[in-house]
């Protein structure tokens, strides 16, 4: 499935009715996700990546902007709720809270299969469930009659992926799918995503703050900062040679598991994180090492630069 997002804006109203403050969580964001591609939204907490995902999933209303699923506008597509949820599925961040601890795992799996008309009897459903579980390296026997907290985080995240695959979706949103999973199990889950595009042609929106797994798994990347996409392009190109100063900062902050790479230069931490949303110029101007006068006055436009987009005055 091809997803097109154009000029997406989401403004939250904070405070009470008497002292409204507008917070632009997603600020004029545009991107495409191609069929069978893993597209990654990368950024720190509060950069708007999760809000963007929620809008794509129909869980949040956009303030402005357009979204198309294979040319169909989101508003039209979502009208048939069953069809929408069949085509668009998600995997959440924390496997321990993805499932209600008082509900059996199989409850979720059977409901998904039966409600979306994938199978019409429990026997057939069980076969389909077993099939999808085997994709993630598990079987129905392991899951039968058991509750979520009888599983480890890694297992739960596999089940979560299998559940999302049950409806044979064309688009999968994965919101930080491995950040709560143990290191030894993380890569095997990331590998599942790697295969999804190749084996099933599913488009994946992979949301994360972890550049290492993004580099490993994503085809294209968009780096978000305070609601803006500041840099977008081919993952390898962007991360091997970042252009935007924020991408550079992100990259050098990744703790690489190799003691020989040392951190020489020091980083400055913003103490005014909330204020950065409300600045009128470039939102990174406050801590950018290359800041110019224009950066403080005017928000930079999206600039095409060697096959990628950068939102920075340096490249004008």
């Amino acid at each position, binding site marked *: 499935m091809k997803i097109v997002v154009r000029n997406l804006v989401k403004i939250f109203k904070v405070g009470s009715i008497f002292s409204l403050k507008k917070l632009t969580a997603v600020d004029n964001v545009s991107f495409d996700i191609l069929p069978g591609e893993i597209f990654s939204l990368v950024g720190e907490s509060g950069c708007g990546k999760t809000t963007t995902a929620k809008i794509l999933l129909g*869980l949040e209303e956009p303030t402005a902007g357009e979204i198309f699923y294979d040319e169909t506008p989101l508003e039209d597509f979502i009208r048939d709720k*069953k069809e929408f*949820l069949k085509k668009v*599925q*998600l995997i*959440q*961040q*924390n496997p321990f*809270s*993805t*499932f*209600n*601890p*008082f*509900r059996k795992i199989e*409850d*979720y799996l059977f*409901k*998904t299969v039966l*409600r*979306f008309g994938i199978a019409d009897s429990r026997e057939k459903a069980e076969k389909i469930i077993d099939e999808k579980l085997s994709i993630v390296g598990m079987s129905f026997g392991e899951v039968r009659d058991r*509750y979520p*907290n*009888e599983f480890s985080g890694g297992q739960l995240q596999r089940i*979560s992926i299998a*559940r*999302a695959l049950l409806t044979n979706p064309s688009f999968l949103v994965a919101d930080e799918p491995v950040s709560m999973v143990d290191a030894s199990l993380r890569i095997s889950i990331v590998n599942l995503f790697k295969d999804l595009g190749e084996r099933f042609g599913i488009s994946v929106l992979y949301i994360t703050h972890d550049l290492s797994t993004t580099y490993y798994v994503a085809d294209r990347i968009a780096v978000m900062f305070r609601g803006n996409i500041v840099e977008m392009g081919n993952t390898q190109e962007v991360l091997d040679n970042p252009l935007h100063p924020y991408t550079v900062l992100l990259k050098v902050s990744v703790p690489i598991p190799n003691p020989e790479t040392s951190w020489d230069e020091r980083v400055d931490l913003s103490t005014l994180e909330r204020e950065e949303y409300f600045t009128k110029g470039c939102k990174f101007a406050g801590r950018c090492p290359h800041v110019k006068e224009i950066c403080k006055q005017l928000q930079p436009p999206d600039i095409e630069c060697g096959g990628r987009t950068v939102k920075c005055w340096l490249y004008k």
Partner: protein
Amino acid sequence: MRKLMYSLSELWEDPKFKYSSIVLGLLIFISILSYFSPYDPYKWYLLPTNQPPSLRHILGTDGKGQDIFWVLSFSLRNSLMLAVVAAVVSRVIALLVGILSGYLGGAVDRLLMALTDTFIVMPVFPLLLLLSSLIKNYLTPPVLGLIVGVFSWSGDARVVRSMVLSLREREFMITSKFSGMTVKEVIVGDLIPYLLPIISGGFIGSMMGAIGFEVVLSILGFVRVETPTLGSMFHWMINFQAMLLGYWWWVLTPIVTAILLFTALYTLSLSVNEYLDPRTRVQRIVVVK
């Protein structure tokens, strides 16, 4: 069903639960006996008055010439019925208002919460007094239960709402949605397990409140005291000055019964609340297996 039996057997390990269920069981048994009573509870002076306990009348007779044991049996039946009606009514309203308000949000939420707040500031006691004195002749125990129920849901509706509000933000609610679950399934499967402690604790609490309220109304003479209830037993006992005349069996019967009933309900709610606490319940699922 198997799960329920298992839970009961687990609860039985708790001495609090054991005590309260034995006492309540006994009281319920006595109240059921009323269906086999040899006497009509509304007829006075069928028996010699003020007889101390004997084999014929195990709790003696009172100043109205009635057998105290059989009066007690009818009274317990009526008081318990009233309590259950009040508890069911107030729980149903509290859950309905709380869940609707928290789940739907928006204008519905504001409207329902405005209503709830009003009921919170209402001076329930004087108002109920006024009401019951006005319709004294219509006040059968179930009607009184209904009235008490209608006036005692507001606090818990707020608690339910705030719990639903926080549950609504949980990730598993989104999973349920993407698994195609219906609103009913989400409420039953995702919300109710977390609301159980407040439902059960509130149920027992409003039972206690309703019984106590009936006793107060009866002592004050604001209900039809001819109907045998725990409260009317107090009423006649005080009215006939049984205390001053030294008819200890008549004085002690309602007092001991009331204390037994209230302590049993109280310990039952403590024990059940401990058992239903979601934190320990989640852990127990694994340990039990």
